[in-house]
């Protein structure tokens, strides 16, 4: 057996983290590990979802002695309401991000900071929404499309337009079950209303609304975010990049963009590429300007510009601990407020840019669409000026870096599959080759690996371990968000990672020319995965829920993940979780989210905190679905 070298192990990653932790200790700087320790023991009532803080009669906690709150709400109602509120908040976050992008598209102009980069994508969406395009200026079309998109947030009647993209079976099912989402904001508001004091206490109804508000995200706000981002900044294509903290450069001005909304980071990237800025950096003794990404902003920027990825959620403090970062500028979501205090220990400028995410102690520069480029240039200049303040003797940049191929939205996946079609037998432009590989047994199935990091489990370990075991079992992985970054750091996005796979997946990777883990983007791009699975279902001729394709979020933590899990299940895809949703205090809720939803959508959660047991259940689940299909 040939030895495959150069992959980064979890132990090597942990050794790097440990060295950075030492630096933190030397500086008496606090990190998440310290805060996690001081939070122990964590509140059991909170963890089980049975502490109600919805009205000021409370807080009410459910115990055997006190099985109901003051109003009479039982554990099922309390846990159910909490669960729905999490889903609603997650949906609000993703969807508001989508709305921001819609506003940018609405203001896009030929000579402004933002232009339409993918006209084809715009015209396709215009056609889908019945917008006139003949003899019209492309920007008029863009503005009308944005307008329609924005109306999806608050239209008084009807359900979401994107639902029509789903399989017919799904559309019928959603209508019949009464879970087809109406306007996005309405579903969020309704969820808050339903969970308000003195409203719904029926857990099943709360779970149904969770599915609905989740879909308002996945088939609404998120999908719009993805769609409009592609129109504005270009639909991603496969490209090479690198990942992990080793992408920071010792002799360059390092600027980290962090968060989720690419509207802002795009401008920073553009500004840093100007000759004027590069020359300015050189005049200050730097070899150049190095932009690196954290979290999903990294995923967005790497797919479109090849910007290198410094790491995922639990790596944000580590990036600053290297002492080599001149500036971290952040937009929205998953930003540790702790970065502000940590920045005090270093020369790093910590810049917040969105009114959605204001953090005390940060430098606040509110980004405006109209002046985005000038503002970005100003920030880059500020970072360059800060280069001379770097304390060179305190710099430690871990050397582990991995090459990666990123950027596989649905269009790119189809393009790749076209390469293995035979022009004498079949048409291009479908998922047929992938379906044939799955039906014949060469591939056993596919898993969408998504989600965050969570200090409740060993960071990245579950992601990487599960992906590796899936790969060995000929199961293709598509990944987004922090899961995709974990795969990047381990080297699983390299083309030669196929050598870690079973013969089936290896052969597919070789013939198609792809890595075994396909990077599909940020967490907002999980909507791409819904379209991918839908496309496969349509080409196969069976509904989504029968496909040997499932989702897995082994280290999730954000409310956004709850929204995502709900729309994934609503789409008919089993979802494997490595962290328990905070409803364990209610047996009825546990039953509802694992089995109850199956009666509604055909899918549910499978929960296991042990990653090895979890991956075993994924493989068993996939094989069971294969058996039912007779393949």
């Amino acid at each position, binding site marked *: *057996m040939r030895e495959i070298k150069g992959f980064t192990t979890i132990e090597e990653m942990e050794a790097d983290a440990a060295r950075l932790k030492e630096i933190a200790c030397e500086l008496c700087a606090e990190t998440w590990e310290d805060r996690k320790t001081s939070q122990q023991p964590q509140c059991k009532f909170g963890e089980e979802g049975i502490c109600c803080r919805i009205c000021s009669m409370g807080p009410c906690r459910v115990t055997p002695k006190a099985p109901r709150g003051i109003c009479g709400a039982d554990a099922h109602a309390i846990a159910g309401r909490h669960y729905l509120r999490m889903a609603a908040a997650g949906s609000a976050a993703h969807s508001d991000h989508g709305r921001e992008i819609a506003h940018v598209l609405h203001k896009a102009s030929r000579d402004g900071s933002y232009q339409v980069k993918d006209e084809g994508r715009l015209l396709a969406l215009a056609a889908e929404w019945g917008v006139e395009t003949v003899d019209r200026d492309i920007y008029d079309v863009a503005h009308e499309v944005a307008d329609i998109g924005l109306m999806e947030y608050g239209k008084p009647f009807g359900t979401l337009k994107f639902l029509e993209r789903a399989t017919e079976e799904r559309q019928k099912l959603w209508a019949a079950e009464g879970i087809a989402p109406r306007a996005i904001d309405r579903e969020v508001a309704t969820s808050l209303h339903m969970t308000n004091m003195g409203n719904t206490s029926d857990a099943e109804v709360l779970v149904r609304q969770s599915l609905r508000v989740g879909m308002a995200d996945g088939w609404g706000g998120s999908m719009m975010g993805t769609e409009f981002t592609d129109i504005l900044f270009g639909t991603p294509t496969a490209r090479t990049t690198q990942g992990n903290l080793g992408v920071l450069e010792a002799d360059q001005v390092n600027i980290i963009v962090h968060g989720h909304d690419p509207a802002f980071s795009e401008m920073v990237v553009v500004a840093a590429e100007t000759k004027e800025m590069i020359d300015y950096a050189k005049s200050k003794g730097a070899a150049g300007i190095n932009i690196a990404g954290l979290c999903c902003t990294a995923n967005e920027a790497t797919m479109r510009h090849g910007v290198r990825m410094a790491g995922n959620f639990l790596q944000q403090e580590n990036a600053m601990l290297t002492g080599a970062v001149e500036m971290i500028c952040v937009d929205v979501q998953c930003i540790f407020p702790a970065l502000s205090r940590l920045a005090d220990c270093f020369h790093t400028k910590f810049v917040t840019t969105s009114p959605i995410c204001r953090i005390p102690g940060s430098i606040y520069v509110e980004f405006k669409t109209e002046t985005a480029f000038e503002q970005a240039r100003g920030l880059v200049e500020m970072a360059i000026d800060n280069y001379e303040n770097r304390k060179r003797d305190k710099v430690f940049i871990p050397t582990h870096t991995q090459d990666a191929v990123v950027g596989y939205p649905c269009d790119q996946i189809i393009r790749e599959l076209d390469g*293995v079609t035979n022009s004498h*037998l079949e048409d291009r432009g479908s998922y047929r080759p992938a379906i044939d*590989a799955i039906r*014949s*047994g*060469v591939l056993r199935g596919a898993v969408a690996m998504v989600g965050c990091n969570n200090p409740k489990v060993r960071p990245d370990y579950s992601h990487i371990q599960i992906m590796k075991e899936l790969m060995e079992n*000929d199961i293709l992985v598509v990944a987004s968000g922090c899961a995709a970054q974990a795969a990047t750091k381990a080297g699983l996005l390299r083309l030669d990672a196929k050598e870690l796979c079973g013969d*089936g997946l290896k052969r597919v990777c070789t*013939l198609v020319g792809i890595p075994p883990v396909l990077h599909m983007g940020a967490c907002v791009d999980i909507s791409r995965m819904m379209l991918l699975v839908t496309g496969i279902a349509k080409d196969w001729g069976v509904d989504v829920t029968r496909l040997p394709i499932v989702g897995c979020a082994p280290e999730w933590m954000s409310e956004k993940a709850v929204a995502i899990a709900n729309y994934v299940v609503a789409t008919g895809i089993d979802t494997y979780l490595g962290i328990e949703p905070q409803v364990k205090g209610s047996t009825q809720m546990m039953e509802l989210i694992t089995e109850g939803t199956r009666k509604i959508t055909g899918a549910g959660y499978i929960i296991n905190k042990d990653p090895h047991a979890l991956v075993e259940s994924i493989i068993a689940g996939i094989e069971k679905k294969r058996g039912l299909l007779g393949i």
Partner: protein
Amino acid sequence: MKKLFDRVFDGADEMFALAQKTIDETIAELGESAPLAMPNTAYGLAVYSAYLAKNINTLGDLKAAFEEAKAWNRHDPRLKHVFSTGMGTFMAAETIEACKYAKGPDPYKGEYHGHLTDAEVRELGVPLVTDDIPGFVVIHGAAPSDEEAIELIKGYQTRGIFVFLLGEVIEQARRKELNMGFPVRVVAVGPDIWQVAHIISFVYRAAMIFGAVQPGDRWEFDDYTFYRIHAFVNAFDPVSDIVVACGAGAIAMGFPVITDDEKDMWRVPKSILIQKDTANFIETSLEARDIKIKITNIDIPVAFSTAFEGEIVRKKDMRIDVDGSKFETFELVRTAELHEIEDHCIELIGPDFDTFEAGSSIGFGMIAEVGGKNMQSDFEPVFERNFHNFLNCVEGVMHTGQRDVLRIRVSSAAYDAGFRAKHFGEVLYAKIMSEYDAVVDKCQVTIITDPDVLKKERADAKKLYDKRDERLGSLTDESVEVFYNCILCQSFSPSHVCIVTPERLGLCGAVSWLDAKATNQLDPNGPCQVVTKERVIDENIGIWEDVNECVFKSSHGSLEQVTLYSIMNDPMTSCGCFECICGIEPFSNGVVIVNREHQGMTPLGMSFAEMASMTGGGVQTPGFMGHGKQFISSRKFMKAEGGPARIVWMPKALKDLVRPKLDRTAQDLYGIEGFTDKIADESVTDEAEALLAYLAEQAHPALEMEPLI
């Protein structure tokens, strides 16, 4: 629908059961200690060797190995196990076939080809690297009709694809009287699916010979077959489970299966393709295996393909016989000024073939005049020597000889199809313009049958040949400024590199220094690059720093030094497609040389195949070296060890071929007359003891030379 993997597992079980039965019966008949060897190969049972690194010499060995092979037949639903089950099926198939050869070296009595020899593997080395054979197809089963079978086979043949036939398609081809055999690249391997073992053995030997892949190194074998052997399968309806099991093995090796059987058949991208229209098999298959055919459109009424290179036109089928022993014949390339050439002008001087009686012997001359801004007269003989290859690709034309002694036959079938004298011109024009377009801008061809003109032009041509010989004679390793390397073979033999010098042509015999020079000029980034020779380490035995640097780089670091004129110290490596192999003969202090065509033993107690297996794949093996035939008479032939005087044994045919030049070299170097006669051959002996006696009797100079070891 029966699952694909289950079909593989069931089919494998069938093959294993048959193998068990066969080996049990054979052992019952011959006993476990009965010797077992496949003929004319140094690789034993190559399939077993590749997978298990087993040396199998007796039926007992085979039985033990077969027990190990059973572990490969593992029925778990993962492609890994499906692949190993497919490969295990090949071992079971080889078991069945080997049992036949245990009973005698020729179980098929000429009816089927069966086992392929090492020499046959090696023969394909050059055409594979030059893409003259762009791929292999294995056709199994019966085509819907005899006509369709023939159409398919001929379709592949005209595209240069090497065809292996298994099963009923052979009978179909026979009914249609198709000319089959290794030389025309259509091989009727055998009537049953288990004869597939011979094809797989052939492929794995190519990996061992050209790729230096070590027995048992499954990973390297998989890579080699996937990336370097462009083979695929056409399986006709009905495809049974046992064929599907073999298909799994083929797909594991990287060879897609194209079939018209839909029942219980599963599409797998680029691996299993269901093409109901068998007329589309060829195009579907070539695309599936990513084979692109170089197409030269030549305006002639018969087919043109490298597959016809080995075709023989027999006397009874002959319409025209160009006979250089009785008539004036010649072929010539000469450079002319661009303005003197009318591009694509084909002129015939004298009567056409119609005017001659069927079967007539005639005189014949061909002059190709070429011009171009980058044309050099040194390229003339390079182009001219390729007339042989060009003309032999014409279906129904056989060309032998060179310069002013030619033998050309045109078959009655070609003549009936409309093939005439001017078509020789069309072929030469098209090939020269397509192969040498980097230096030839214009070309015109004159064909001569008129006896008077022939006489005059042949005399002029002779003057030119003499001039070239003079130039060639003056070309020595010392007189030229640079050498060339040749990495043409690296598509098959990734770490081999030849250093081509005026006195040491490429070991395949196909690339002389002038060829390499022309190749370099034609494609400056191509397989032949300039190697400077400025930093001398030892010019006498052939070591230069520049050469070593080139060898290190071109072999991707696997070689550090070569001594060009030695076979003992850092000798040049071999790719595997060498014409001859020489190896030291310790008792006489000399070397034995044997050419690929020679089937018999040598005084080393080894055949060509066995000696050849000692080297190849870009590995340095002191004491053994592959080389071209023309190198034998070179002054640089093992100069470090004393030169050609070391040669003590060669097959007679080879002696006859090299005699004139070798005698002259020996005369010049040692003052020995008729040296070739002092060399023993198979008519004298193929045993070491008798060899020594003969050499003593002949006062062979090697006996007096310093010990080699």
